[in-house]
């Protein structure tokens, strides 16, 4: 299966990050690896864009950050959802599901 260029799907990266952080606080590297592993490397995510999205969502108040210690005892910046972020995740999930269902429905009729 060919890799999908995520740039095509606006806002999807935000949704993926929110979903990832829904399991608890993570640093940027962990978010990147988790997405890569979960999608079996089928989504091509430029990590620079991922960090930009993290910082942008922090500015919007969806995420909060805090410096903490990583698994190997290094200083790392941990992100976690705020209540506004959780609300965003719910809303975006609903939209995305509807969207995907609609597109899929169109593709089915042939």
């Amino acid at each position: 299966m060919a890799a999908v260029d995520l740039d095509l799907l606006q806002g999807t990266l935000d949704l993926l990050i929110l979903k990832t952080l829904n399991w608890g606080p993570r640093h940027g590297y962990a978010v990147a690896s988790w997405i890569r592993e979960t999608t079996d490397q089928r989504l091509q995510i430029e990590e620079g864009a991922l960090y930009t999205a993290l910082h942008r969502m922090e500015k919007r108040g969806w995420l909060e950050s805090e410096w903490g210690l990583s698994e190997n005892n290094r200083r790392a910046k941990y992100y976690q959802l705020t209540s506004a972020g959780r609300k965003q995740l719910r809303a975006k999930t609903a939209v995305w599901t509807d969207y995907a269902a609609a597109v899929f429905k169109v593709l089915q009729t042939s």
Partner: protein
Amino acid sequence: MTRLPGLKRILRIERDRAGVERAVDDELQFHFDMTMRELMSSGLPAEEARAEATRRFGDVQRTRERLATIDRSRLGRERRNEWWNAFAQDLRYAIRGLRLKPSFAIAVILTLGLGIGANATMFGIVDRLLFRPPTFLTAPDRAARLYFLRTFRGKEDVQSYTGYRRYLDLKEMTTSFDAMTPFYSNDVAVGSGETTKEMKVGFGAADLWKMFAVRPVIGRFFTASEDVPPNGARVVVLSYAFWQTQFGGRKDALGSLIDIGPAKYTIIGVAPEGFNAFATDPLVAFIPTSAASATMGSPRNPWYSTYNMTWFETFARRKPGVTAAAASADLSAAFQRSYKKELEANPRQTPFNIAKPRAFVGPVLRDRGPKEGSDAKVATWLVGVAAIVLLIACANVANLLLARALRRRREIAVRIALGVSRGRLLMQLATESLLLAFLGGLAGLAITQWGGTIMRKALLDQTDAGPSAFTDPRVLGFAALLAVAAGLLTGLVPAFQTAREDVSSALKAGAREGHVHRSRLRTSLLIGQAALSVVLLVGAGLFIRSLVNVQNVRMGYDAERLLWVQPHMRGTKTDSIQSMQMLNGMRERAQAIPGVEHAARALTVPFWSTWEYSLYVAGIDSMSKLGDFTLQAASPEFFSTMGTRVLRGRAFTAADGEHAPRVMVIGQSMAKKIWPSEDALGKCIRINADTMPCTTVIGIAEDVRRGSLAETEMHYYLPISQFQPQGGGLFVRTSGEPANQADRLRRELQKLMPGVSYVTVTPMSTIIAPEIRSWKIGAIMFAVFGALALVLAAVGLYSVIAYNVTQRTHEMGVRVALGAQARDVVRLVVREGLRVVIPGVALGAIIALLAGRWVAPLLFQVSPTDPPVLVSVVLTLIAVAIAASWIPATRAARVDPNEALRAD
């Protein structure tokens, strides 16, 4: 994540610009290290792992910058939010604090309100006199009032008034201006029949409209072709307010006729609301100069071609790019050419090289220029006075806040001990005083609204309500500025005091201790207050004495119960014989009215009009070198009517008629000037030309003040029947209340007026009032502000002494227990009050003595170091100090030693 406001800041390191970038770098570094480690652990060599990590990331440099930008803007917003939250919290806290102590809040707000109100009121007046350009004026920086200088008898004299011929010369001979217009305003009878009223009307040329950015509300303005001598078009532009009140704002007012002065004018337009040209008093209408001047002058000497009638001021606008200096030079050259033309027409004029004529463009506002009124000078002084009142108010508020801060020492120490930062604490105290200042500012605006109306009505003789203090942006801005300044000034003193506080000693100490070193600051505030009060009260004393002197000065006539009756001819043309007969008839009718003691015909009115003729005396080359001699032409009853005393010789009688030998009465100083060592009685003066027959001096009268209250004039009197001037009116002395008599007189005499002509009756006191006004304003305002300052100082002293007495209850208890009498305790406390006030009074007296020479020119026959004023002010202050410390002193004397020693 839990949000601990204090804690968050410790963990956040990226608060500044460099911090933000460092944090981004740290984060990305961590990411690369982790990626590398993972890739290498799967067997990739370091080189390839680095390449793969970079490929996965994308453009590192660009991302780095983008992240830093996002973070910076996020931090900025967070910081602003935090600040606003803190501010809102402080505000809530401050409001709660004030509501718990309403008496304190009211005292502070009222004190500040009085201070700010006094200043905003004075600002509103001075702003109008000195700063605010006329409404709608285009390019106020290029607009100018023209001033002309000539040297007379070795002294350079500045004049702004000029005549039409001069204006035409200047307009033609200058190139620096793109607009030039005469402008003046006059009280003129407007309307007809019973509704006729004297109102202020403005006169100008078509260029007037060019100098202002205005369009007519309806109709049009007059044009240059309607303003041409000898007879301009009889058209009028109404003011907006007049149009509204007289015509109900109806459009059909256009084209209708209105009586203004001696003629009927066609209404052609309405000026926009607020337009008042260059005038300060509200005008009702605007008329072309040439239309209004048509009746002036004489056929031999028409108004538009003579140089020696001056009745208006000239305004001009410099062309863009022409400097004031260049325009003045241009104007000067034109004035000099014009002066030479004048010399050709009138060779008796002062020669060119003696008069040294020159001219310059001055500020549009009269009071900014060389001919400033004394009102403006006094008003400028009052600004200083108001500022002093504000300083005293601030000192008082600072004192109240200090006392409050001392009471709150423990609370504040507890908060510091709990870790609230001192900066935060300062912010909070500042918020409280700014809130107080804001409320004080509102109170001040209310006082300004009220005080401004009173000032304008009672003191400046202006009946218009003026702009509301709440909507005038300039007054509003000024009041806001004062409020912030006052808030910071009063808030910072106790705040810094608090910030310096030693936490542990404050926590340990009771309410009693620790006031000793701090009271030094409060003492110096009190000394300053006392000193400023002395300065203001000395000012009040000096102005009140000036006012008394002005009112008691011998004018050379008795202005009480004296009325001036002026007939205004309208429509009918009367020759001099008819006018003379009419005036004689009016005089006889007036004399017959019950309650009228005397009535006399006269030509001129003190302070309103003067008349001069060239005089010739044998043995004296040039009379004009001796000074100005003004004349009054009057009927025989004049001296008894005016109350002017004839000191030697005799007054006129009915026998000094038209065909009798010519006689005159001269003033004392005139007699002394012309014949320093001889008796003037029986001497001969020739009037108007040295070929005229002798006019014999038959009496010497006391000197009169008729141009200025400060000095007497050289004045002489001619029998009106021999002099036969055009115009003039009657002086009438009544026995009763002049206001009632005035109306009765007007109604009686109106019956004698032909056609639509009418008479006006003006009490002499009204004519003199503007002359006295500056001293009256000075006396009233200094007295009001001085009393205010005294009350504030007394309250300040009282509160400090009372506070100290409370602090020393324990000590007083010990004293009483050890046998001190109530008298001793009272003396102790009062002495403490005096120890503060006496240095303040001494300081204030020194300042008053030093400032004296600046105020001297505004006083009237009072030395600025007048001992009675100084002594009585000093005694007043000391008496007030004793009174202010008396109440706390008696309270201290009643201390029950048992209770005092047991407490705390």
